[in-house]
């Protein structure tokens, strides 16, 4: 049996751990660091950098460096979070074909699962170097409040990275597992997880080796980065007042500000005051300008107070869902780098009425927990079990634009639910099922996970047909839905993938094409030529079909070829295109002779 690693795929930093001799431990990378920045860069000469090196060259190469991509993964192009990100990220974001997001760096378009995959691959390498053997299996963590699309996209990333992802597990749950592992606890634990990009709160009951999540809540767009942004705005405003230049318009300057803000924020956790010096940050007609600002801890606290308070509104909701009061909590665990901020610690202590647990490493505990979960799954005689919940309610859109919940939030997973629906009009023969996740009663206010059509329902008065819709949420928190017409037995099912933007085929394609990553650049010219040739054949085919009307079969053939060809072009897959071209030409010839 191979070894299984636990990977905390973080917004700012990632961490990998393994269980050895019954003990979970973090694996340091080549540089000796125990965490690796989740940053990817492609340098001018086309080299791919991940981690510390990528982060270091961020200032000199902001357009071709991707960071905090986790804030975007599994989101839709038209979501408000993406609109916000577009304004502040120095790298280019563009819309993908399925309404997903692509990142363009170094003239390459990358999907977010692909970027995640590169970071995962790096963590895999770190582990392999340490262990001296290949690692195939991993448990990967996600924020507890991630929805289905975000989980699915993260799982896709694992597949692209060549990992067998045994389980997707929630970060706070992993932290609780690492904390309670082997201690034989009987406690109610609150995990307050404020990371680089996301906030989660989870309430767990632990007893007899069972870790039961009672409730979880969070905000997947609230984290340390938002604290940085406040500080960046503060510095930029000061500079604007003094020099009349808006540094936020200059990508390079903005990047330096971001760097400085992050550093200042960390300094202020230990010291009451810090000076920020950024020489030559801008120039105008009067010469070079330097930024010099002093920031005190109180000032920072003033800037970020509302962010911190927002977390406690969320904590209240989680406690309420768990049916508990804050003094029912026996232990509070702090996770995530942002919990180092003294104000956060103070407010947590006030809210729960007790000192947070010391000795839990906020950056490492999640990866440790993930590795423990991996061990638990593979070991037949493990005496621990994790019972996690789904963070969001799940259901379908029903007549009148309402959202009918089938599985309430905080339901223990895996879970299977069935419900019978019916038609809304007389003689309706098809129904379209919109699968949604969220808490609003109005369908439109919830996240659309996917949709499918069930057709062939025998005509009947409205309300007569019986359509059984079954929902499944597996242990990864991933949703699948099927609908069945009870009269005809006709069935339709989907594993909801819509907003991850990648279909099963596409993922497989990426897996294959990442194997010959090297041929890609070399053959760009060849690709251009083939593409031109291919497209002209297709064009001639279309014209001929219009003239001769040879029937549906030929049209279908053409569509299939066209689709395959464009996929090959999109992925710069020269080999596939080379094979497709003669096929297409043969079809043309056949048609010409008819």
């Amino acid at each position, binding site marked *: 049996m191979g070894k299984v690693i636990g990977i905390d795929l973080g917004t700012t930093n990632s961490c990998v751990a393994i269980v050895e001799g019954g003990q979970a431990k973090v694996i340091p990378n080549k540089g000796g660091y125990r965490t690796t920045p989740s940053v990817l860069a492609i340098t001018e000469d086309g080299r791919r950098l991940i981690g510390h090196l990528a982060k270091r060259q961020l200032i000199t190469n902001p357009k071709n460096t991707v960071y905090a991509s986790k804030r975007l993964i599994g989101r839709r192009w038209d979501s408000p979070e993406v609109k916000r990100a577009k304004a502040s990220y120095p790298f280019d974001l563009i819309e993908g074909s399925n309404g997903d997001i692509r990142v363009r760096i170094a003239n390459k378009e990358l999907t977010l699962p692909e970027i995640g995959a590169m970071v995962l691959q790096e963590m895999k390498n770190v582990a392999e170097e340490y262990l001296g053997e290949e690692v195939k299996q991993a448990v990967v963590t996600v924020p507890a409040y991630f929805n289905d699309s975000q989980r699915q996209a993260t799982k896709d990333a694992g597949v692209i990275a060549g990992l067998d992802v045994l389980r997707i597990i929630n970060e706070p749950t992993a932290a609780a597992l690492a904390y309670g592992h082997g201690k034989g606890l009987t406690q109610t634990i609150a995990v307050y997880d404020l990371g680089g990009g996301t906030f989660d709160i989870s309430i767990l009951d632990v*007893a007899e080796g*069972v870790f*039961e999540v009672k409730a979880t809540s969070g905000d997947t767009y609230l984290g340390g980065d938002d604290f940085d942004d406040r500080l960046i705005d503060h510095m930029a405003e000061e500079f604007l007042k003094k020099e009349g230049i808006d540094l936020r318009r200059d990508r390079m300057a903005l990047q330096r500000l971001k760097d400085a803000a992050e550093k200042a924020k960390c300094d202020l956790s230990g010291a009451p005051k810090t000076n920020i010096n950024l020489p030559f940050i801008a120039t105008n007609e009067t010469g070079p300008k330097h930024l010099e600002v002093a920031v005190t801890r109180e000032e920072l606290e003033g800037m970020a107070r509302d962010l911190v308070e927002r977390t406690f509104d969320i904590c209240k909701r989680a406690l309420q869902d768990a049916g508990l009061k804050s003094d029912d909590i026996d232990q509070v665990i702090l996770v995530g780098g942002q919990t180092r901020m003294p104000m956060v610690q103070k407010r947590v202590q006030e809210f729960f009425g007790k000192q947070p647990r010391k000795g839990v490493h906020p950056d490492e505990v999640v990866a440790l927990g993930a590795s423990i979960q991996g061990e638990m799954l593979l070991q037949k005689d493990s005496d621990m*079990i*994790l019972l996690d919940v789904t963070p969001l309610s799940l259901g379908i859109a029903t007549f009148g634009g309402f959202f009918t919940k089938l599985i309430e939030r905080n339901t223990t997973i895996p879970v299977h639910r069935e419900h019978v629906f019916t038609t809304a009009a007389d003689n309706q023969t098809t129904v379209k099922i919109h699968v949604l996740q969220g808490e609003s009663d109005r369908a439109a206010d919830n996240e659309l996970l996917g949709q499918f059509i069930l057709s062939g329902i025998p005509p009947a008065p409205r309300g007569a047909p019986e359509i059984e819709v079954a929902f499944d949420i597996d*242990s990864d928190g991933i949703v699948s839905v099927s609908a069945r017409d009870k009269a005809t037995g006709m069935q339709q099912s989907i594993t909801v993938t819509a907003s991850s933007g990648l279909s099963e085929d596409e993922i497989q394609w990426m897996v294959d094409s990442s194997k010959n990553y090297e041929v890609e650049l070399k053959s760009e010219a060849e690709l251009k030529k083939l593409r031109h040739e291919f497209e002209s054949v297709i064009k001639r085919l279309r014209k001929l079909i219009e003239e001769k009307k040879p029937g549906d079969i030929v049209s279908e053939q053409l569509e299939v070829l066209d689709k395959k060809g464009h996929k090959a072009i999109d992925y710069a897959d020269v080999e596939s295109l080379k094979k497709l071209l003669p096929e297409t030409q043969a079809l043309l010839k056949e048609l010409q002779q008819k």
Partner: protein
Amino acid sequence: MSNNKAGFGSQDIPEINKAVNIPSLNLTATEGFVLSQVDGRMTIGELKLISNLREKEFADVLDKLVKAGAVKIKESRVPAEKKPLVSKELKNGTASFEDRVRSLYLDMESLTHYDLLGIGKNATNEEIKKAFYRMTKEFHPDRFFRGGDVEVRERLQNIFARINDAYKTLLDPNKRREYDAGFEEIEDRLNMLVEDKRKNNPFMETILKSKRLYEGALEEIKRKNYAAAKQNLKIAISLDPFNKHYPETLLKIDKLESAEQARRYYSAALVHESEGRYKEAAKLYREAMVLDSENELYYIRLAKIILQQENNPEAAKKLVQKAIELNPGNPEQYLILGLIFREKGQREAAIAQFEKGLKIDPDHKELVKEFKRTKKGK
């Protein structure tokens, strides 16, 4: 639930008193029907349900059966504060994981939330939680993570869902109250249904329903879920006692079940035999014969052991003759018969038997060998 005249509770499980000669009893058709349903698994409450009799009628029938000595109470299903009622195998802890899963899976639908978690009706939230954690640790799907058997995995999913449902229902005071009230309501509703049926005679509907159950049972038989099939059939019979297919199928299932068990004994016995533990092997072959008297293989194997290890050619001969009756086409039996004759010094008869066997399978090695040896011995 009210007690009946005989003084039994609805959770008591009756079984047939084997010491009594049933045909000698003077029973009515109704009493006979109820008696035929007693299987040592169903409770009195369930019996009443499937027999479709009025409360008083059923009580009379039961009373009569008890007085006649035909049935006695075997055990009572989960009196308060009892261990989980999930079959004996489970309690012993000797059964394999897969067996325990199967057993619980088949039982779980008929168990109340309390039975399932193995707690009393007055259990506190603490006790409920403890019981749930204990069951979870044993039956969570992660316990069989990526285990090879899809069926076990699916069953675990269902079991866990059921356990979780019980836990969530009992933990919530409102839901628990509703659930407890539901017991009585179900009881009442069933009684009403029975009444209704007598009044309105929605005959077709009942017949159709029983037919669906019967079809479901056939499906279950295909999947070898015999217990589920039986359950279906029993209800089908209660809905439509005049359809003769149902009891016939029920009998067929019993046969199938025994035949399957017999096959298991047989293969275990083969192992014993090949490793020289003849006593154990003989015992299992006998068990197999009892369970399935129509498979000649069991007779042949047993005959061989009796002949060669216990040196009892007469007994062996009887067994082989029975085997030949069942299936004259197995060469093995002529080999044994031949050996028996040779043992007795009847050389010609032995050779004749070997020849018979060789006619069926000319390449049977042992037959060829014994045939030659016997001929040479002349």
